[in-house]
Structures are given as structure tokens and as C-alpha cells.
């Protein structure tokens, strides 16, 4: 059996296509990101070696500090929002007692299919300070909380993060549903026979079984926050001032507007390193602690 599973030729054959593709089109460019971040480069011409100067300069800017904080805020909001709602709705949609399940399943995923530009336009209208839906709604309900959502120095990032959270919730939702679908029906019956309520069943059985799925979802949402770019580019252009800057946005402006591509890449390099830290932390948090994992023998729950 061991030989069957350690067949070197088979292993090589299986991993080769993916590796070649990945190394050629992603890994080498990433290496180049780190490499050129040490140079003064405009993207096209000769590069001048600068050592770590780009990084020193980057760390000294106020925008860098703001960007890191924004990455965390963004990641926090979308993680909490998406994981919470995705779980809730996934549980609903996989529960046979809920009517119109198929409709909900499609509905919650629709925002993911829409173009991000349209979604941003919609939320800009909703968040508009003078005539937006949100402020108007609050006025009608008598709530005294009109905000300048998109222009506040500290509120803007939350508003923009919300747009992303809202649009991509469907994506986490689909992942969790797929995960739940592969939990055998027998488990639920066993739990029922044991007299568990719905909440207990899900809390003690369903969620732990989806550990790997959640590891992945959390990774996607947290790194998604650190990598945030598109919504910021469309809605606030990093503004007001640098209030909604993120590392990816800094990289973009430096690379294409000031033509200091090398300097921009230093921001990108920091971004990659931060994401690496996140994946390491998450893998450690989700490591297999107890002997009780997914029962390999089928029905019996430990």
C-alpha cells in the first residue's frame, strides 16, 4: 500500500502541470516583485540598485501606517460579516425544513456574479450623504445618525469594506454549503436520536466538521482585506487624502502614476509577507489538536 501511494512517477506526473503553470506565471513574477523592490525602476527601463531604501522610505510615510491599519479593519469587517451570514444562511439552505431553499441559494449568490463596478455604483448611491438611501431611511425612521459615510476620514474605510463584504458573502456561502453537503445525512439522524436541538447539532457537530472549510474561508477574507483594492479604486480613490489607502492601492499609485515601480513593489512585497503571516497563524489556530477529527470510519461519532 505504501508503495502504491509513494509511486514517484505518479506523483511527479500529478504535480507537474500545476507546478509548471504556477512557477512560470505566478511564482517567478512574485520573485520579481521582491527583486525589483530593491531597485529604482520605472517598469520599463534599466533599474538602479537601492538596497532597502524603498522599504525605509515606505515605512516612514504616514500612508503606510494608515494602509496597514486599513487592511486590518477591512479584513475584520468582511470576515465577521461574511462568516456570520454565510454560516447562518448555509445552515438555513441545507436544512430540509426550510421552504424555498433553492431560491435562497440562488439569491444569496447573485451579488457575486455582478460586476464589481455596478455594485460599487449602487452602494455609492446608497451611501450618498445628501440623497442616499441610507441617510434618507434613517431620517424617515427618526434616527438621528446621518453620516458622511464615504467622506469621513475614519468612516470611509468601513463603508467601502462593507461593499466588499456584502458582494462576496455569497462566495463564502457557496463554499460552506458545499462543505455542509458532504456531511453524511446519518450524522444528523444520529444527533437527532441523541436528542440534540438544532442549535446544539450545528454548534457541536456541523461547524467542527467544517474546520478546513472555515480555515480557508477565514484565509480568503482576512487576506482579502489586506489585499483590498478594487472597491477603493472605484469609490474613494484612496481618499479623502490617504484615509482609505491600502498597500495594494499605494502600490498601484506608485507604480503607474509616479512611475516609481520599484517603490510600489516594496508595498506589494510587504503585502505578500503579511498574507504569509496570516496563513501561518491560521494554520496554527486550526491545527489538529485533539484526536477527534473527521471520523475516518464513517458513522460513529467520537
Amino acid at each position, binding site marked *: 500500500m505504501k508503495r502504491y501511494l509513494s509511486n514517484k512517477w505518479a506523483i511527479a506526473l500529478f504535480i507537474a502541470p500545476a507546478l509548471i503553470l504556477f512557477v512560470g506565471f505566478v511564482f517567478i513574477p512574485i520573485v520579481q516583485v521582491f527583486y525589483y523592490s530593491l531597485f529604482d525602476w520605472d517598469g*520599463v527601463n*534599466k533599474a538602479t540598485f537601492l538596497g532597502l531604501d524603498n522599504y525605509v522610505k515606505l515605512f516612514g510615510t504616514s500612508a503606510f501606517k494608515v494602509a496597514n491599519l486599513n487592511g486590518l479593519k477591512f479584513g475584520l469587517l468582511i470576515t465577521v460579516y461574511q462568516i456570520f451570514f454565510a454560516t447562518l444562511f448555509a445552515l438555513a439552505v441545507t436544512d430540509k425544513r426550510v421552504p424555498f431553499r433553492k431560491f435562497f441559494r440562488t439569491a444569496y449568490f447573485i451579488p457575486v456574479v455582478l460586476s464589481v463596478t455596478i455594485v460599487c455604483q449602487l452602494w455609492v448611491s446608497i451611501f450618498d450623504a445628501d440623497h442616499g438611501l441610507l441617510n434618507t431611511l434613517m431620517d424617515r425612521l427618526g434616527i438621528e445618525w446621518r453620516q458622511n459615510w*464615504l467622506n469621513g*476620514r475614519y468612516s470611509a474605510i468601513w463603508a467601502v469594506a462593507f461593499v466588499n463584504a456584502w458582494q462576496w458573502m455569497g462566495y463564502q456561502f457557496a463554499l460552506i454549503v458545499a462543505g455542509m453537503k458532504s456531511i453524511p445525512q446519518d450524522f444528523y439522524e444520529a444527533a437527532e436520536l441523541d436528542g440534540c436541538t438544532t442549535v446544539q447539532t450545528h454548534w457541536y457537530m456541523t461547524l467542527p466538521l467544517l474546520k478546513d472549510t472555515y480555515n480557508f474561508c477565514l484565509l480568503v477574507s482576512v487576506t482579502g482585506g489586506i489585499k483590498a483594492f478594487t472597491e477603493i479604486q472605484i469609490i474613494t480613490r484612496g481618499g479623502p*487624502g490617504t484615509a482609505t489607502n491600502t498597500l495594494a492601492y499605494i502600490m498601484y499609485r506608485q507604480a503607474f502614476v509616479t512611475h516609481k515601480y520599484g517603490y510600489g513593489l516594496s508595498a506589494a512585497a510587504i503585502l505578500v509577507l503579511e498574507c504569509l503571516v496570516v496563513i501561518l497563524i491560521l494554520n496554527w489556530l486550526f491545527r489538529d489538536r485533539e484526536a477527534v477529527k473527521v471520523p475516518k470510519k464513517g458513522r460513529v461519532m467520537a
Partner: protein
Amino acid sequence: MKKFLSLILVLALALAVMVPAMAEEKVTLKIYAQYADDDTMVPYDYAKEKLAEAYPNVELELIVQAQDDGATLLGLAAAHNLPDIYQTGAGIMPTLRGSNQMMVLNDVAEKTGFADKVFESAKNFLYADDGNIYAFPYAGNEYVLWYINKAVFADAGVEVPTTYEELLNAIEVFKNKDIVPLALFGQEGWITAAMFDVIATRYNAGGIKALDNGSASIKDEAYVNAAQTLYDLTKAGLFQTGVTSTNYDQASELFLSGKAAMFLNGQWYIEDATKALGDDVCWIAYPAPTAEEFEASKHAFSGSGSVAGYAVNPDSPNAELAAEVAAFISEKYCEAKITLRNNPLVAVNTGLTNDTLPPMMQDLVAEIPEMTSTTAFTWGLTNQVFTEAIGTWTQALVSGEYTVEEVIDEIAAAME
């Protein structure tokens, strides 16, 4: 007999090969150009039409320019895959020149007589700092104009402001009537920089241009005062709420629908503004701190043209022809702008005139000889780091969320 027949055969074959070669070959030139709104589509279509007459064997394959801060052009340059002819701006020129992807056009400019036809006032948009020609310009000088809606003013009983004092009063009145005093598309850094500039030029005529070329510093009193003024005006409510996430069309609609009393934009807006508001719209001299300063500085304008236009890829298989075509197209753009877009502010003297210019343009044309100084739009600045900084931090200023000190310090820090 055989020899005779074989001779005929050889001759026939030779003719068969030569005749098609003697006929004109169709050459396809890829051209990277703006093509999305009337301002860019009308000149292009006109140029294409005229090109078909003058160069019948040339086909243009249009590649529409993306509004992505030049990212696409940079990517193409990195892959050495630039189109034959491409529109370029001042910002990316150093990069392209450095990698020899901009053809030196001096000879072609001579040959086609383009160089001679360029207006004196536009000569510095033609020649780069090393005296060479890298692009054929078509846009002439451009200016930042302060537009007002006379009907809205009359309705509210407000006089046209000439000092900041009067402007503040006007703001009060407009706010009470639920009218936006000045609509600004603060999402874009260039207009917030222009807003800063129209104030700064009251204190120092060099405006942001002086900051760009280093002849003035952001910490000079003139600029600190300007920043303070802009801050005060913002806090008084000069702009619509949500100014920093308002886009161009949104702000424009506010003005054209009468919901805003004033608007800041370039002179290219005259056409659309006149179409929507007719006689109700006009532009005014920028307000100043006091009445005397207003009189003294009312001919100091913000904005100017820039080194930009159609450039040619020297590695193109038809470089020479492409260069000639580029020169031709630029010239036709100028013709189209004058005759079809009511915009006489072009780089090339085409010999054409337009007698039916809208009133605002006539006023502008009359004003131009009186102008004492101009500055620049952000895309005409030479220091890219400064361009980025001034755009970002003037936006910060009009949001009202940053203090004047912070803004000044940040700009100064970026310039180090």
C-alpha cells in the same frame, strides 16, 4: 519553337509577380487613442475620414484607450509591444523615451511642415526639454474656468462674488435655499489641485506650477494662506457633502440641472454647459482675498496645455509612414476641434476659423491676450511625485477632515 514558348512563360510569370507588387499594398496601422465621448470621438472620426482621402492605402485599427492612469501603456511598453501610433501624456514620456520606444520625429515634422504650422504659443508643447519632437500635439492651451449659473444667482438674489468675503456670504444664502454653492468632483485629484490653484494663484501667480518646478515651496506664506482659505471655504460649506466621492458626471449633473450655483472645470466644458444652460451660464474671474487683489490678479489663470499628443513606435515596421500619418491626424484633430467642437484652442494653425463660437468661448478668446500668467493642470506637471502629493492632499483639504498643518506637512514630506 520551344525556346520561344519558354520565354513567353518566363515573361508571363515575371509579370504575374511584379504586377501585384506594383499595386498599392494596404498598410494597417494600430492606433491607441481616446474614443469614448463626443470630445474624443468627433475628432477621431473626422481624421479617419480625411485620412482615407489623403492616404487611401492606410487602414487604421483603433485600440480604445483605457482610463487606467497609463497602466496599459506601461504594460505594453514593458513587453515592447506598443502600437504604431499612440496618444501619450507628459507623465509617461520619460519612461518611454528612456527605453527608445518614442520615435524622434524632428525629420518628419520638417518634411510634412508640421513644425512650422504649430502656433508660437504652443511651441513648448511640441519640443521636449532636449529640443526634440517626440509627439505631435493637437490640444492647445487649456484653462481652468470658474463657471456660474446666472439664473440661480439671480433667483437667490446674490451678486457674483469677487472676494472671499462675498463668496462666504453667497455660500450662506445658497445653503439656506438648499443649493450647492460649488459642485466639485472631488474624487479626482486633478480638480482639487485646480481648486487649490485658483486660490493659490491669487497669492502667488506661479500657483502649483511654481511648486512643481521648485521655484516656490509649499511652506511659503502664499501657499499656507491658500490652504487656509480653501479649508475655511470648505468648512463654510462651499462644496456638496460627499465631495470626495463625487465623480465628474455627478458633479456636472448637479450644475447642469440647476442644483449647484457654480462649477469648476476646464474650458472644454463650454460646449456641454452651453448646450444645457444656454445663456444662463458664464465664467468669471476667480475671487480673491480683497477687492484690490482681485483687480490685480484677475488675469492670472490656472491651467495650461502640456506636452502630449500622438507619438510613434520606432520599432513599427512602417515607422516612417506611421509618423507621417500621426502628423496628419494631429492636424485633422485641430481642424475638427475648431469646426465641429467650437474649440479654437488648438496647437496647429490650420487656417480655419469658426465664427459661431458660443459666448463663453468668445469671452475666453478675448481674454487670452490679456492673461498675465498661466500655471498647469496636474497632467502637465513634470514632477510625478509632486503631482501625486498635490492631488491627494488637496483632496484631503476639501474633505474638511484634515487640518491645514497636516496637509502642508505631508506635501512637504513627499517632496523631500
